[in-house]
């Protein structure tokens, strides 16, 4: 290896390390700072305590907000995943979707949240539905739809068509085939859809702030107002808790995707 080659290599590694530091630094700083005993944020924290965690976890406001976020996220997750799976069924039975249909279903990816939020605001005000949690859940489900649809299509497309024929020849009705054969095969994609659409709603800020409930705000919305008005380390505690939840979900997803990759190598080796 020539000398310049080695120098380039070192520079490349250094740049990559700097990149990762840049991406992770804020989180690395925030987590220890949440354990500070003081009234304001300081890093590095010289006195450690769990006081902000106990304040947050005992606070009616934060817990209600988390509960609201949870409810909306669960509803949104169910709507998005079920709708996505239905699209998967269509692809399985009727072949690939036309490009127009595909564009329509994937359109939420192309539209900025803020444009949707603005229009939705317009629609909801005369209907007096501004701030309705169900509306937010539906809107967030729509934003998550591209993800569930893509996952669903990928999963159902990989299932052999002859499986349906074989099962019905053996006497199974369509609902039995669907529940006992197709859903289990697509299970990992379905669970991934559930997790991703949950995460999408749980973290979603724009729609929540613009058209979401205001008095009993979702967690991101509440964090936003909180950050605008005051900034105690309580927010660091909330952020760290959210981070832990995110990492757990990411770990589950990671394990699932490993399992899915293994399954896709042998799509029909699963016993129903």
């Amino acid at each position, binding site marked *: 290896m020539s000398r310049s080659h080695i120098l380039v290599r070192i520079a*490349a590694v250094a*740049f*990559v390390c700097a*990149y990762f530091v*840049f*991406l992770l630094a*804020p989180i690395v*700083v*925030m987590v220890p700072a949440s354990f500070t005993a003081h009234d304001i*944020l300081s*890093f*590095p924290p010289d006195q450690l305590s769990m006081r902000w965690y106990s304040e947050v976890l005992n606070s009616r406001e934060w817990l209600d907000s988390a509960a609201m976020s949870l409810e909306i996220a669960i509803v949104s997750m169910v*709507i998005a995943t079920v*709708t*996505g799976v*239905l*699209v998967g*069924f*269509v692809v399985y*039975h*009727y*072949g690939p979707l036309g490009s127009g249909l595909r564009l*329509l*279903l994937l*359109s*939420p990816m*192309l*539209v*900025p*949240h*803020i*444009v*949707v939020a*603005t*229009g939705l605001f*317009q*629609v909801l005000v005369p209907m007096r539905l501004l701030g309705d949690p169900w509306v937010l859940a*539906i809107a967030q*489900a*729509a*934003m998550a*739809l591209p993800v569930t649809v893509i996952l669903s299509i990928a999963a159902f497309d990989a299932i052999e*068509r002859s499986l*349906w*024929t074989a099962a019905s020849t053996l006497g199974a009705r369509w609902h039995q085939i669907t529940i006992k054969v197709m859903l289990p095969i697509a299970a990992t994609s379905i669970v991934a859809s559930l997790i991703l659409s949950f995460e999408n709603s*749980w*973290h979603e800020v*724009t729609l929540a*702030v*613009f058209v979401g409930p205001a008095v009993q705000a979702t967690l991101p919305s509440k*964090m936003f107002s909180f950050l605008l008005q005051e*900034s105690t380390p309580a927010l*660091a505690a909330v*952020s760290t808790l*959210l*981070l832990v939840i*995110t*990492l757990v*979900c*990411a770990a589950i997803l990671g394990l699932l995707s490993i399992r899915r990759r293994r399954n896709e190598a042998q799509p029909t080796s699963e016993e129903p």
Partner: protein
Amino acid sequence: MAKNSALSSGLKYCLLAPGLLLIGLAIVMPITVGFFAAFRSNGVWTLQNFQTVLTQAPYATVLVNTLMISVVVAAVSIGMAFPVCMFFARAGRIATGFFVASMTIVLAISMLVRTYAWQVILAYNGPLNEIAIAMGLYDQKQMMLFTRGAVVVAMIQFMTPYAALILFSAMRRVDHDIVLASRTLGASWWQGFRSAYWPQVSGSVVLATVLVFSMATGFFVAPALLGGPGEAMVGTQIHADLVFNYKNGAGLATAQGVVLAFILAIVTVAGFWLGGSSFLRSASR
């Protein structure tokens, strides 16, 4: 794909109905209503909103700010991600898996959490100030928060993993034999890069740029929390209009939305034109 003749085609539309209904209600209807609302002001059909948004302060300034910030964010996000992706694109399975996993995990972290983390780092008594003073860069503590730099840096940190994932998946598909061939024919590293490597990835670079730019224009959390009044972007302006301006806010807000969508459409078309067929290929994947 064989169609299953046991099921009618009427059933197809029943199964698709929830999805189409969802999109119709949550995307198509709001956008359409918003579009028409932009043309109404004080109860009459007019172009007044657009004139205000494009020419008067603070709207015009906000729009220009937004575009400038978004361009910088897009350029730097992708500029930073490009070498890193090149580095990992040829790495072994473990390194590759680690890279994709870490990008995905960073993306999964809520934007609010990350924005707040920047508040912690850039604070007056925060670690960055302390490090800078210790290194002798500054004599005294600087006000790093509520500046344009803070907003730009936070937005770059948010966007660059998206760019990295898009670029990475394209770079994995690069045919390195072509680059090798160019080298054996006497091309220097730069010539080989320009003629053999770049055309293969240019489509996704353009796609990543368009995507990051689109996301950046719609941002409102970072400018609101990390920026000063001079950093107001379209997102914060729309929010202020909708919430505080009862009479005309809706028209102005939707007009800004329309202008934004129009700009994004132009940028996307420019992307098609610049990136050519490889852009279409990346976009449809």
